[in-house]
């Protein structure tokens, strides 16, 4: 259940959504892709503005944009690739989302180029492999190549690489950073890792129990956390290694206090098109 989630992402901007597990981060990511709205249980209030449409409404408008205008990277790349199809077939279908009439040869050529771009040494061999034959890091690269192959406006990265080890995770973020800078793609990073967020994002939304509680630029938020929940989060950092986020043991009524928006981060005057 989400309440009045409202996200805005400007072109080329990197925005992070931070919260503990179960706070509704992943649900928000899926709502932004229009993936949950057709379920009867889903009750959505609020809006996710992107590409001139409200993705939170679901329906054909967002469905048409999936895979080409908006793409997604998953937590565990190996389980996000189908175990019964080679990478080649799946990559072709990804490219078909961007161009219905693309020929097989053209698709393969572009797939190889995309894999070369993410520094996969032998793209032809990777295409002829199944995901379970490749390492987690390789699959992560394949996933990024797929995500960016159709030059999307927005890339949603749901805890990218948290299922992998720390070095691969760092490589993933570096690669994502470089490529999205190059293509001018906006990124919505879903994470519970404040260290990653601080390094990667321009702007941050903090989510607590299905509600956005604080919203500001990365600098504002880390130097001047105003919401009690954000403060608690930041205070918890030194106690744990690796920059992960602990489950704060106690719910505090304070955490339910209303949304705090930092200066300059209000509703944008013009919707991002």
């Amino acid at each position, binding site marked *: 259940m989400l309440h009045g989630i409202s996200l805005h992402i400007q072109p080329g901007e990197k925005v992070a959504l931070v919260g503990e597990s179960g706070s509704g981060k992943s649900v928000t990511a899926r709502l932004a892709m229009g993936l949950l709205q057709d379920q*009867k249980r889903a009750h959505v209030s609020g809006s996710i503005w992107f590409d001139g449409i409200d993705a939170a409404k679901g329906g054909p408008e967002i469905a048409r944009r*999936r895979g080409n205008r908006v793409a997604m990277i*998953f937590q565990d790349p190996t389980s*996000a690739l189908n175990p019964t199809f080679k990478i080649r077939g799946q990559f072709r279908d990804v490219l078909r989302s961007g161009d219905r009439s693309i020929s097989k040869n053209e698709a393969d050529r572009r797939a190889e180029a995309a894999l070369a771009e993410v520094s996969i040494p032998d793209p032809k061999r990777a295409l002829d492999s199944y995901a379970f034959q490749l390492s987690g890091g390789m699959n992560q690269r394949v996933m990024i190549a797929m995500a960016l192959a159709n030059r999307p406006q927005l890339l949603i990265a749901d805890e990218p690489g948290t299922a992998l080890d720390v070095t691969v995770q760092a490589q993933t973020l570096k690669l994502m950073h470089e490529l999205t800078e190059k293509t001018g793609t906006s990124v919505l990073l879903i994470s519970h890792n404040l260290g990653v967020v601080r390094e990667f994002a321009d702007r941050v939304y903090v989510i607590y129990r299905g509600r956005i509680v604080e919203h500001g630029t990365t600098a504002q938020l880390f130097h001047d956390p105003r919401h009690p929940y954000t403060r608690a989060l930041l205070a918890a950092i030194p106690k744990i290694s690796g920059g992960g986020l602990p489950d704060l043991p106690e719910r505090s009524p304070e955490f339910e206090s209303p949304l705090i928006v930092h200066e300059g981060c209000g509703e944008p005057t013009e919707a991002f098109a």
Partner: protein
Amino acid sequence: MSNILRSLLHRLGAALIVMIGISMLIFAIARVMPGDPARIALGPNATAEQVAALRVERHLDASLPVQYWEFVKSLAQGDLGKSLYTNRPVTTDIAQFLPATLELVFVSGILMVLIGLPIGILSAHFRGRFPDHVGRLISLLGVCTPAFVWGVILQLVFGYFWGWFPIEGRLLEGTPIPAGPTGFYLIDMAMAGNGAGFLDALHHLILPALALAMSGLGQTARLTRSNMNEVYERPYVEMARAYGFPARRIATRYAFRPALIPTLTILGLEFAAMLGNAFLVEKVFGWPGLSRYGVEVILRKDLDAIVGTVLIIAAAFLIVNIIVDILVNVINPRIRLAAGRA
């Protein structure tokens, strides 16, 4: 291909062990049951001399291990003994009746897959909506209704009332029976270039094959549905949706193929159950297969014929399961490639 060959040999070895077990089981059933098998086989009117002669002929006075050894020795020579009912070698009888049964079972197996899988896919694709309810109803009725009940109902409605299909038999009276070589009329007619005969054979096959297929068809649809619903929750299906793959393509490829692997194993069992249920359907439609022979020899306590019939069906069952295992390996790249590395 060598990995597939190796796994084939492995499975054949395992099947051989089970087959030996089956021969022991059947032998045990035939010998341990109360009463003198020779007396039971010859009936109450036989003389004591006849009974004694049969006991000698069948080594019935020897110890059980010796009897089993004799039994296995003749089995190894392809000798299943002699039927007291037809007075012919059991192998000759089975060779005559088995093709009709196998043709029926194969066509049912094809119907089971061709109808059951799409129903399962549609049910999963339209989960909780009208096509799903219809699909679940069909599979429920399929699973819960004995093959002979389907037989009599289909026969009554489509045979007697509407007259769309023949009531019984494999061919119309007057259609010449094809000379061979397979004993499968569909294949024999096609090989002889007899189009009318082929259609006639097909026309006779449809109702019994459908009646026989219903239970497996229902089970197939049910399993496909539940396995696909499970696969739909997997990250790779979410990925396919997130990348805008068409819903139809997800249903028929990306969700279907992973769901097919667990379904296929059960399909083998269902197909094999048809070998048993064929007895029921054959009785309804007067199908000249193993059923009439099997029931007749059982009622007449024709020892060798019963043992032979059961062994042949068990062997067919095992062969089908080996084929299914191999198919699963071919479809599942994880197993195929792992076998290649080993």
